[in-house]
């Protein structure tokens, strides 16, 4: 516990001094806010730009806040995983490559506290940024359109947070197992690519971590099917725990690969 705290403090200093704690939330807020504003003012913007025929109607003035929020999360979804993977793909592998890990591994540290300090640091940054981004988006949607039930937003954020935890865990574990390039590619494949496949041929099953993004949005309207949703949550939590074990194991096994 003490080692985890000391190592987490190092992680935190890293994230502060590499400015991750600043730019990641800012970018997430930006992507959370842009969509509602753009949708709302699309017509005004078009007019301002000119070239629009008189009486042209984009047909978007009657968009509901739920639809706006849904399309925002869709946009958000595209950028969030990518930024998380790219920002944290080297979180463990980079330390092996630049050999700073040697001075940690010669101390009596446990690899679980090492892995979890990495995981915790990345999770705090990713999760807080996600929540701030979604809240900003909610705020804009409410002032520009109309009220959305707070519990629906809470459910959306909760569900989406689990997806973010999944992406963080995939990334940190990949970094524990492989060099940075391989880790990044693998994490992109396991998030984007599998999700793409899931969205193309995934109608045959309903339980999967890659459906969490869709389920998160469903909270805004009809609510997701209860058993499908909760099973997906359980499967995701199990996947995260398994990935953590693999990550701790990988970090320990790769200790030999530091060239000193």
């Amino acid at each position: 516990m003490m080692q985890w705290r000391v190592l987490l403090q190092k992680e935190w200093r890293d994230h502060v001094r590499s400015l991750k704690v600043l730019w990641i939330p800012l970018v997430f807020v930006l992507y959370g806010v842009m969509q509602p504003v753009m949708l709302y003012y699309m017509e005004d913007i078009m007019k301002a730009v000119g070239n629009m025929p008189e009486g042209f109607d984009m047909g978007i003035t009657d968009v509901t806040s739920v639809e706006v929020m849904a399309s925002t999360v869709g946009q958000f979804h595209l950028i969030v995983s990518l930024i998380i993977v790219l920002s944290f793909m080297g979180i463990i592998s980079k330390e092996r490559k630049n050999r700073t890990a040697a001075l940690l591994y010669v101390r009596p540290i446990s690899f679980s506290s090492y892995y979890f300090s990495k995981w915790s640091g990345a999770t705090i940054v990713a999760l807080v940024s996600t929540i701030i981004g979604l809240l900003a988006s909610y705020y804009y949607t409410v002032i520009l359109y109309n009220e959305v039930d707070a519990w629906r937003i809470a459910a959306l954020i909760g569900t989406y947070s689990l997806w973010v935890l999944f992406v963080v865990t995939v990334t940190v574990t990949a970094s524990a197992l492989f060099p940075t390039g391989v880790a990044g590619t693998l994490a992109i494949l396991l998030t984007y690519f599998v999700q793409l496949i899931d969205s193309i041929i995934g109608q045959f099953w309903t339980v999967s971590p890659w459906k969490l993004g869709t389920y998160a949005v469903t909270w805004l309207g009809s609510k997701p099917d209860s058993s499908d949703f909760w099973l997906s949550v359980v499967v995701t939590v199990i996947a995260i725990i398994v990935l953590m074990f693999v990550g701790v194991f990988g970090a320990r096994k790769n200790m030999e690969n530091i060239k000193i």
Partner: protein
Amino acid sequence: MSQLLQVSALQKNYGQHEVIKNISFELTQGTATALIGPNGAGKTTILSMLAGLLKPTNGQIQFDGIVGDPRAAIGFLPQYPQFNSWLTASEFLIMAARLSGLTAQTAKEESEKMLQFVGLKDAANKKIGTFSGGMKQRLGLAQAIIHKPKLLLLDEPVSALDPAGRLDMMNLMKSLQQEMTILYSTHILNDAEQMTDQLLFLKAGKLVEQGSLQDVKAKYEHRQIVVEFKVVEEAAQFVVKSTLSAEQQGNIVILQTDDMQQVIRELAKETFTIRKVEQQSASLEEIFMKVAKL
């Protein structure tokens, strides 16, 4: 004196390649041991195994009187210590101390003491990224000793430093000798000669010779007496007349003996003009060359 570490039949393979071949040695508490060998002999590999960074393929590393994780009782300075450049020296040392089990308070106090000891007090709150190579080496030493380890492992601690830095580092190491057992590697024999109770000669992953500095010297030393004549002709004459095995190099004659009395007696028989008579003992460098040829 009691024994601190016993290494027996240590072996390390990378695939088919045997990097360390069946090495055994002991370290006695409170001694300094120099691990000598050319680059690529396996010095770093041995130190890494002792430090717990590499797992031996075969053999045992046994610490006497150390319970629990041996890493808590070991300090390690890699040849090129790498630090997170965005941490300050003081932040890094406190972290290192805490990871070795010191309390927050002790870690803070010790880090201040260590920075003072290695002469980095003024740079305590500077980012390590701004440090010179010599400063990083000192910080590396500080992190290796901050938790008062019983065994201090130093990989080529001075070879990357300039002469002044080298002297500083040697002095720091000497001052630590009373407190901890030291094992350090080097390929510079002069450095080894300055501070060592035991020598381990490593060549291509094998331990080719070991023993105290005196023992090794006594074993390999081929004592010679060098006589310098004023003129070459006299030197040539002496080589012919001498009963000793002699070799002429211009106006210098090298005699393979350590019997100064006899040399002087023989020289006294003639009326040579002699500039210098000198007994030469082999340097560690020469011994090393001999050992390396074994």
